[in-house]
């Protein structure tokens, strides 16, 4: 209990006003998702760093059942045309990417689908892997531009030089005190390097502060937090 307070007052549970159900909360309402970074999009004035949240992704952790990694790879190849590369790398096929995050463990990224993505993946991998939906668990930012490595170097203790971290390479690591999953994305159309960073949702604001502080010298301005606001209110189906 906090330290000091008067003896309890005599206030009654004043909010207790029984009545009738509110029609606005009808069961058939649909819920609007709030992206982890609130749909963050920012750029330094000269384009040296561009930050954009990748919204609506399907995300899942995939862990092979004991001894079934080979079967899992085979099923992915057969069903999705995805050739699973070993180690901390990204394996891609179409809209599906599997980021190697640990032995026999992947961070699966689908270009869309949200929470439904993991359902489909789990069905594909039934008996071969544990699949856990993480589409809400992480926010994913795409960072790109000529300053991107200089900014990441301020918190990521991994060598991201192209000679050490090539296209398709991935790392589970830190950005400052925040854990991240990081992978080299396809280079931008102008040839500049791009990285995807997945951050646990609850850390989004702290990561965002670190990112903007670290990129301030490149002109990425820190504005008001575009965190969850009223955007998530219940809305009726259109």
């Amino acid at each position, binding site marked *: *209990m*906090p330290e000091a307070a*008067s*003896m*309890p*007052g005599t*206030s*009654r*549970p*004043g909010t*207790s*006003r*029984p009545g009738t159900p*509110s029609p*606005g*909360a*009808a*069961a*058939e*309402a649909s*819920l*609007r*998702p709030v992206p*982890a970074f609130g749909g963050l999009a920012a750029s330094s004035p000269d384009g040296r760093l561009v930050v954009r949240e990748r919204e609506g992704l399907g995300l899942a*952790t995939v*862990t*092979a*059942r*004991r001894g079934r990694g080979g079967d899992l790879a085979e099923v992915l190849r057969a069903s999705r045309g995805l050739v699973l590369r070993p180690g901390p790398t990204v394996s891609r096929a179409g809209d599906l990417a599997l980021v190697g995050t640990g032995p026999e463990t992947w961070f699966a990224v689908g270009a869309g689908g*949200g*929470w439904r993505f993991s359902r489909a993946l789990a069905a594909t991998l039934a008996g071969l*892997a*544990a699949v*856990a939906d*993480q589409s*809400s*668990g992480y926010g994913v930012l795409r960072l790109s531009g000529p300053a991107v490595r200089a900014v990441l*170097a*301020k*918190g990521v203790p991994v060598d991201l*030089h192209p*000679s050490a971290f090539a296209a398709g390479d991935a790392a589970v690591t830190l950005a400052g*005190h*925040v854990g991240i999953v990081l992978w080299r994305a396809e280079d931008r159309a102008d040839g500049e390097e791009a990285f995807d960073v997945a951050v646990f*949702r*609850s*850390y*989004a*604001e*702290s990561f965002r*502060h*670190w990112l903007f*502080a*670290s990129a301030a*010298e490149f002109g990425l301005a820190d504005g008001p937090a575009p*965190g*969850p606001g*009223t955007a*998530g*209110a219940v809305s009726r189906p259109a």
Partner: protein
Amino acid sequence: MRDVQSHRLDAAGLVDRARPLGFRFDGRAYEGFLGDTLASALLANGVRLVGRSFKYHRPRGIVTAGPEEPNALVALREGARREPNSKATAVELFDGLSARSQNRWPSLAFDAGAVNGLLAPLLVAGFYYKTFKWPSGFWERVYEPAIRRAAGLGRSSGLPDPDSYEGAYAFCDLLVIGAGPAGLAAALAAGRAGARVILCEEDFALGGRLLCERDAVDGRPAAAWAARAVAELATLPGVTLMARTAVFGAYDGGTFGAVEKVSDHLAVPDPGRPRQRLWRIAARRSVLAAGAIERPLVFPGNDRPGVMMAAASRSYVNRFGVLPGRRVAVLTATDDGWRAAFDLAERGARIEAVIDPRPAGPPALEERARRLGARLLRGGRVAGTHGRLGLTGVTVAAAGGRTERLPVDLLVMSGGYNPNLALTTHLGARPAWSEEIAAFVPGGLPPGMSVAGAARGTLSLGAALREGHAAGREAAEACGLGGCAGEAPRADDEAAGLAASWPVAGARKAFVDFQHDVTVADVALAHREGFRSVELLKRYTTLGMATDQGKLSNLNGHALMAGLLGRPIPEVGTTAARAPTVPVAIGALAGHARGRHFKPTRLTAGHALAAERGATFVEAGQWLRPQWFAAPGEADWLATVTREVRAVREAVGICDVSTLGKIDVQGPDAGAFLDRVYVNGFSGLPVGRARYGVMLREDGFVLDDGTAARLAPDHFVVSTTTANAARVMKHLTYCAQVLWPEADVQLASVTEAWAQYAVAGPRARRLLEALLGAAADVSDAALPFMGAREFEWAGVPVRLFRLSFSGELAYEIAVPAAYGDALGRALLAAGAFLGVAPYGSEALGVLRIEKGHVAGNEISGTTTAGDLGLGRLMSRKKDFVGRALAGRPGLVDPDRLRLVGLRPLDPAGRLSGGAHLLAPGAAATTANDLGYVTSAAFSPSLGRWIALALLRRGPERIGEHLRAVDLLRGTDVPVEVCPPVFVDPEGVRLHA
């Protein structure tokens, strides 16, 4: 009105005379140039008195031209940006710089503290150990405050540092430390071969001694060659040049710490830029090319302003275009020192004398000196110096002993060179002694490091360049890069010839450690009293513990001790060097993590909603949780919490419980796995059901508690407490990977993936019915207590558990966290007609205390399941983590403290956490201590304060009267011991 630069040369040097910079020292305005240090600018203006010494407050001037400076310490900048103890020799001049002298009162020229000098006979090394012991209590009140006031140098502003700092990581094939001749050559060789090279230089200019000496490299003036080398390095794609960056520590695995002074050369940092940046550099190889530091000579009065190192005098005249003195005496035990006479004379100084204690030396030097009109005193010495606040003369003694006073304003000295080898010893290697240069040189080296140039004891320029080149080439080759390293640069192999000139006992007021006022006599006293190991010498006299870290003083002190012991210097040894090699701002080492960003802040998906509803937030580990939601008119938090608790007990409340840990446990062995990590069984749990479980540590004490629900035969979701979420995940990972690697079980933390609200109170079911409609049947039959369901509602997957922490009819409803905000709003909207109230962690705490549920205050790491009344959960039919050690006698001792409830005998009595329990009439002693209050709360349901407590033989004492005694707050409350469940002990509400 600014002073003219009286000692600035018209030409010469690398300062930019077109860029004048105004600055102030002790309030007086001066002018210097871009490229100056504060020290060179002060000298240019004829300022010689710069500071006062630590103990005797003796006047002190500028001795060196680098970061080894012991004397010229100033307070830099004003206000919250004040930086005490800044070395004027390492401060880059900027326009508007302001500096003040330190450790003096009322003024630098007249310092009352100088009275200490008169007391010097009493204030010898370690004097304080022998006195100030009497009378008792005087130490803290009288002696110590006086000593403390006198000690210290500069003053901290005490204000929050307004500038920012940051860290950064860098990786390279080769780290070159020092951009002097050897470092430039190494970087060129490796860079040309294609290596990723980082070249760090502490100075703002690259070139090291090349900028300060009148040498030639590859036929060019040294400084011009350095400029060309730097220009070439800048074109090499793999090379990163880092000026103003000091490598301060070598750590394991080829990791180095370095601090970059990003903005210290500016009045204030540019927007978005930090003041300093901490680099952690991981290097496959490293070349230490940090040069060497010239050693002072120890003679009477060697600390007077106007006595300067010979190499420093050349830096001032050659690099900064400043003549540090007009009438000069040179005291040198090296051929190298003679160069100062020639360089200073070249720029107009009159050389009065060259005193060289060596009996003979190269005739060419003597001939050249004679042509300058200087007197030569071979085998001579300096017997004393004169001048109250600055040098006005020296008394020299010729070989025969005849003394003579010479009028000089500058005395330069050269006692040989100490290689800058500290980084070689950070991982434990010890230096080796070199008779050739009479100094310690690198012995062992950290893995992957090589040393080149003066840092290795190589004191000729040509050899340093060759060594640097070779080291760079070899490093590139070791990294598999065989590209062309080019040719080694060429320069003269002029020898620096020297003879050891060690201080001897007996000289008066001859200083070994300038800043700490350690004299020859102090070292002798330490020897006399048995402090003869160099480490004991250091600790007893404080030799080498000043801000210059003994860079100038250590070897002279150790040599003196060696002489007193009659043993060779290498046998006496040297003290261990440890990081940092230069003092490093604490702000730089902390970087971004300060203030509100000291640790990350974790926010739930319901945070914005809670904020809108007026929540007060509280830290729960890294999370922020709503503590309560104050309503208008409520007198204080207790009124608020009381209302929230009543809402739950009488209507319905919702509480964001997303911070609880959630671990997905899948696989054919998931049930068997949980049987092993929980004290109770889970493999028999039906699908669609949840169970409360307790985990133990291997030592048998409770680790955590929570529920696990079975969603499918091979799929559980385990919940943990907020505080232990990471620890439990780590523990389960350990169990799965290390203890039972053969188990087919897969773990994933899904804490972040789900937003979860508790919906609690007699109207909870009605709220859910209103919310979910036909999507789910929440009747008692369909979802009984401890039931768990998954279904889709409103387009999202839902997990609905019938769990209760409050003891009321209650549920926990979870949706993917992206929909958490919407769920919270939907719950409030759907429940408005029921009087739903959001409640915070405080009400949650009250509710659980009323129900006797244990939490962090009870699961403290020292309680057993039995202590907490959970012993009956411990299965006897299976083994589990902690079972064996839970059976140790100490853990099953009936005398242990066990969980009970307490209520004050006086209904108005108030209880507080941390009070101890005593029997009525018992004295307040440890022997009578029966236990303590773990958690206390005002119970709105009972209308009185209640508490949980851990009490010796607690359950046996139910009904007894005791006292809850809080000696800190002065309360003594008679209480009755009762069962820990205060509300609805039969669980009727729970099963409603």
